[in-house]
């Protein structure tokens, strides 16, 4: 029974509207597949590149307790990258292809990781703000339509639950510490606040993919809604720390039931997206180095595995 594409697409959309999950071997529109490959791989790249700014402080963590917590957190990000690459691979692209796209600069990853991590307080601010922003996105994605992606997100959200607490606890300790430590915490908030808001992407009216993504339930809330949610939940957390959010326009709006906030510097946003942040080049250089330096290792393991398999066959015959 041949069905034409139009019917298949209508049926597909009906399944999504009914809240059904789409699985890897199900029929799907080519654009759905491509969009997912792009979004999931970008997400995976963000996890993997995201290891670098925090990895930068593992060797300098101020105490053994902090060191193991940070190591475990950065390690989780490797795991999350792995889960996400696996989810994308169900759509017919290999991990190697995706990594090559990252390494040669054709794939995107979250711009936040192109900012430098300069002090220990940045480990607090990243955990608190960057993971805080990421979780908002990720919780939404646990209900996304594509099954393997949704399942990866469920696992990731479960594991992420300690990440933000880890960061906030670092901030709290600094804010309860000396003047110098508190200043360090404030400085980190000053530098990470705006880039964290930018993590939710451009404003809705400038976000061309949103409508289709909503229809396919890849997204269930718009960029601006998510950004507002983040601000509303984060400002009181800053108050508890006794830190000042670096936005003079930030104000509770009783009528809206939300915080009003100042204009994001979109020029900076697009600059970093286009590769002109302070660390874009360094991040890619580090990823390329890890991959290139690992090539002989991966090749050797393959050669060894093949030889062992041959040995088993010749023994058996």
């Amino acid at each position, binding site marked *: 029974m041949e069905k034409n594409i139009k019917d298949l697409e209508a049926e597909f959309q009906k399944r999504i509207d009914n809240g059904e999950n789409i*699985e890897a*071997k*199900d*029929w799907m529109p080519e654009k759905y597949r491509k969009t997912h490959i792009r979004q999931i791989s970008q997400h995976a790249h963000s996890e993997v590149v995201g290891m670098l700014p925090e990895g930068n402080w593992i060797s300098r963590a101020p105490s053994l307790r902090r060191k193991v917590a940070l190591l475990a957190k950065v*390690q989780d990000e490797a*795991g999350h990258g*792995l*889960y996400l690459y*696996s989810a994308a*691979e169900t759509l017919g692209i*290999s*991990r*190697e292809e995706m990594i090559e796209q990252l390494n040669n600069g054709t794939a995107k990853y979250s711009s936040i990781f192109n900012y430098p991590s300069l002090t220990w307080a940045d480990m607090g601010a990243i955990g608190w703000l960057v993971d805080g922003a990421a979780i908002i996105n990720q919780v939404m994605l646990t209900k996304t339509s594509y099954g393997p992606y949704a*399942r*990866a997100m469920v*696992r990731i959200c479960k*594991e992420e639950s300690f990440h933000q607490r880890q960061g906030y606890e670092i901030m709290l300790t600094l804010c309860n510490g000396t003047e110098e430590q508190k200043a360090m915490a404030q400085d980190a908030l000053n530098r990470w606040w705006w880039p964290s808001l930018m993590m939710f992407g451009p404003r809705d009216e400038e976000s061309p993919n949103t409508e289709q993504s909503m229809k396919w339930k890849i997204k269930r809330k718009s960029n601006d809604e998510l950004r507002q949610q983040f601000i509303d939940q984060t400002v009181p957390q800053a108050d508890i720390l006794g830190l000042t959010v670096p936005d003079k326009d930030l104000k509770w709006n009783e009528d809206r039931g939300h915080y009003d906030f100042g204009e994001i510097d979109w020029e900076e946003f697009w600059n970093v997206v286009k590769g002109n942040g302070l660390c874009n080049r360094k991040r890619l250089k580090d990823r390329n180095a890890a991959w290139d330096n690992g090539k002989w290792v*991966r*090749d050797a*393991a*393959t*050669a*060894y*595995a093949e030889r*062992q*398999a041959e040995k088993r066959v010749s023994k058996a015959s």
Partner: protein
Amino acid sequence: MNKEWPIWEIFIRSKNGLDHRHVGSLHAADAEMAIQNARDVYTRRQEGVSIWVVESKHITASNPEKSGEYFEPAKDKVYRHPTFYKLPDELKHM
């Protein structure tokens, strides 16, 4: 040489008495590495006591286009379920 490590599907028994359950996949050059990688990736939070690995290419899946003919006929066979049978309320356990 440019060959990617193959993909493996990972099954974990979370504690004795339970089935192995599919938890995800990963890359490894051979079965031994797949087991070790699975241990390192999927049991960091005490998720398991036993691991199975199988190379993905060895799994054959049913065709989703046949899901109608395969799975829907079971829908109306309610007599396979205990609630189909009417028994007096006084009978507590059966």
